[in-house]
Every structure is written in C-alpha cells, then in structure tokens.
C-alpha cells in the first residue's frame, strides 16, 4: 500500500514536470525572436545531454555500488592505470563538448551580426533609468520607473507589474532588424530583456552592439542586470513591439511632441506652470535620492528643503542640477532632461517645502546656459 503511494506521488510529480505551464514558469523563456528560439533550443539540447550523462554516470555508479557490495563477497580489483580507459574518458567528453560547441557557435555568429539594421536605437544607462535615442529620427526620451512610491514603501497594494513598469516604454517595430547601441553615462549597467534574448552591458565610454528582430507584437519586460547602485532594482526595461505602421505613427507623434516642447523653450513660463511640471519631474527623477519631501538622505544625498546655500544662489543651484557635482553621487542632468524640464524642476525645488524664493527659472535661460 505504501509502495503504491510512493509510485503515485512520483507519477504525479513527473506529470507536473512535463506540463507546459510549470516548464514555462521555471525554464528560460522561448522568447519572441529567431535568436531567442535558437538559444532556447540550444539550452534544451544541452540540458538533455546533461540528463543522459547524469543518468549513465550515476546509474553505473549506483549499480556497481549495489551489485558488487562487500556483504556479497565482492573483492576490489587491484590495478594501476589503464591507458585505453583513460583515452576513452578523455576523448568522449571532448567529442561531446565539440558537438555542443558547433551549433552554439553558429548561433553566436548570428547574435554578433548587427549589420544591415533597419533602425538604430542608442540605449544609455543612467543611475537609475534608461535613455532611448532613435538615431537619425530626432526622437529621444528617458524611461523612468512607473511603479508609484507608496507601493515600494509598502503603503499601497502592489500592481501586477510591480517594479517592471515604466512611464515610457521603448517602442520598436516588429519584423524589422533593430540595432541596439548600448552605453552608460555613469557606472556599468546591463540592459536585459529575457524574451528578446538580449543581455548586454552598458559601459561608460564604450558602445556595445546588439540587435533584435521581434516576431510578435507585445510588451516585453526586463531589468538592469548589473548592480549599479542604490536604485538598481528600480530601473526596469519595458519594450513595446508594435506593427511597423503603428510604429511610424508613434514616431511621428513623438517628433511633433518634441517640436512642441522645443517651442516651449522660447516663451515665458508662469511660476504655477513651472511648479506643476517640476513636481512631475522631481517625482520621477529626483525623489529617489532627495526624497519626496526634499529632506534628502544625508550625508550622500543632501536635503533640499531649507538648503540655504542653494536658495541664496540660484546660479549654483542651476549649475548643480545641469552639470552635476564631480566626485559625488549627483549626476549631470543635461543629457537626461530638456531645458523646460530642468527649469521646471529647479523652480519646483526653489519653491516647494517652504523654500519660498518665489523665483521662476525660465527654460530660455537654461537653454542659453547649456548652449555656451
């Protein structure tokens, strides 16, 4: 009775292991590109080779242990070296390894061939967000964590894609070869999207290449895969793959929005307008270090609320935000934010949390300063 119970449990376990849902949950994803499918099939081939080796080696070992046990009068053979056996156990693994290396190399060759791309996207890692630039299209934006802070601090219910959601995803066309050029503004990051089979380091002052040709429209999520500091867990990657027509429409819309933003630089902004925009920018960019209430996390991240040195000197404040402070954790935001966003966030910092300077920093002044 007990024996039957054991067999039934084992049978159920096997059935569960072979079921597709469990495999999908524990195994690597098959993905949505030709390369990702090839990697998956390589992974499975090598997995089964390992299973066979494991069964043969451990099977022979356990069989020998049992069959030739001492209680049955087995005697150990005494011999030293056996050239033929040694040759076999050296040659067989060699052949297995070469047999695995040949298909793996063929796939690697495809992965490294980033030539003849239809679209180039520059991906820049920044502490702690990704910046995307569609080369030759004049479209660029920053992709920030989309999960609200209260979910992270435990004050709100976690959403379905907790820490795997962004404010603006990277939009790519399906069926087109997209070359990804990766670099970083500060430390080493790694752009990783399992479904696209891309995990590529973004290294400061280097440009790494990779490419994708996505087969199916959809939303694919990933994370930074290289420990890059305090908010490493808070810079996810979201790729939205759409049909080429939808992509063209999206691109046109982004270009129009960029032009509207550019024209906003020249006009005079009211304090309220800047405050509203600045609060948004502060929330997605600055609050993770300097805190939503401006209290900072001294000594690494100074308080902004009641920061007399900054409030007395608007030029110093602007310079700090635009150019960063060398040797500290404060990065230059001139590449992350445009003049409108910079002016808005500086204005916000100069008027929020009791910093009532009443000053409105104009985008035009920031643009002029950055042009110099």
């Amino acid at each position: 009775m007990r024996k039957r119970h054991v067999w039934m449990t084992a049978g159920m376990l096997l059935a569960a292991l072979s079921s597709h849902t469990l495999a999908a949950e524990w195994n690597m994803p098959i993905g949505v590109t030709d390369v990702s499918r090839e990697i998956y099939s390589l992974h499975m081939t090598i997995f089964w080779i390992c299973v066979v080796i494991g069964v043969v080696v451990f099977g022979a070992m356990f069989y020998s242990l049992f069959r030739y046990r001492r209680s049955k009068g087995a005697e150990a053979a005494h011999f030293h070296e056996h050239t033929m056996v040694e040759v076999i156990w050296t040659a067989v693994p060699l052949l297995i390894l070469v047999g695995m290396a040949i298909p793996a190399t063929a796939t690697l060759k495809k992965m490294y061939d980033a030539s003849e791309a239809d679209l180039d996207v520059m991906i820049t890692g920044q502490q702690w967000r990704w910046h995307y630039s569609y080369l030759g299209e004049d479209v660029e934006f920053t992709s920030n964590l989309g999960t609200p802070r209260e979910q992270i601090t435990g004050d709100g219910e976690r959403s379905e894609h907790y820490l795997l959601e962004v404010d603006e995803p990277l939009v790519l066309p399906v069926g087109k070869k997209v070359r990804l050029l990766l670099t970083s503004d500060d430390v080493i990051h790694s752009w990783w999207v399992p479904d696209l089979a891309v995990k590529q380091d973004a290294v400061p002052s280097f440009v790494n290449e990779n490419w994708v040709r996505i087969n199916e429209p959809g939303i694919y999520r990933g994370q930074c895969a290289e420990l890059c500091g305090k908010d490493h867990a808070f810079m996810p990657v979201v790729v939205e793959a759409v049909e080429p027509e939808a992509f063209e429409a999206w691109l046109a819309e982004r270009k129009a929005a960029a032009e509207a933003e550019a024209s906003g630089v020249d006009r005079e902004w009211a304090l309220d307008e800047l405050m509203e925009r600045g609060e948004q920018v502060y929330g997605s960019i600055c609050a993770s270090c300097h805190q939503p209430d401006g209290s900072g996390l001294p000594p690494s991240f100074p308080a902004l609320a009641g920061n007399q040195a900054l409030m007395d000197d608007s030029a110093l404040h602007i310079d700090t935000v635009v150019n960063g402070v060398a040797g500290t954790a404060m990065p230059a935001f001139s590449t992350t934010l445009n003049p409108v966003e910079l002016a808005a966030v500086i204005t916000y910092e100069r008027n929020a949390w009791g910093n009532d300077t009443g000053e409105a920093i104009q985008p035009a002044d920031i643009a002029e300063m950055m042009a110099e």
Partner: protein
Amino acid sequence: MWKTVKSVLAAFFGVQREAQRREDFTSGKPISFILVGILMGIILVLILIVVAMTAAG
C-alpha cells in the same frame, strides 16, 4: 625526435602509458621536451586560428 613529439602529444591529450613515461624520464633530455612543447603549442594555436577563420567564413 619522433618519440619526443609523441610524448608531447600524449601530454596535450593528458594520457600517457607508464612504460613510455619511465623511458622519457630516463633517456630523454628536458630541453628537447621544452622546445618541442613550445613549438607544438604554437602549431596548436595556429590550427585553432585557421579553424576559427574558416568557421567565420
């Protein structure tokens, strides 16, 4: 000379007969093994480069 090459090949592979090992250590000179070893190491690297270049097409 041919014996030395064979012994170096056996060392590359990692398996050598005990009798041959004894003979190498009694009759062979270290310098000849070192020189043949370096030369064959270079040849191995060249073969690998050619294989890689053929594979890369």
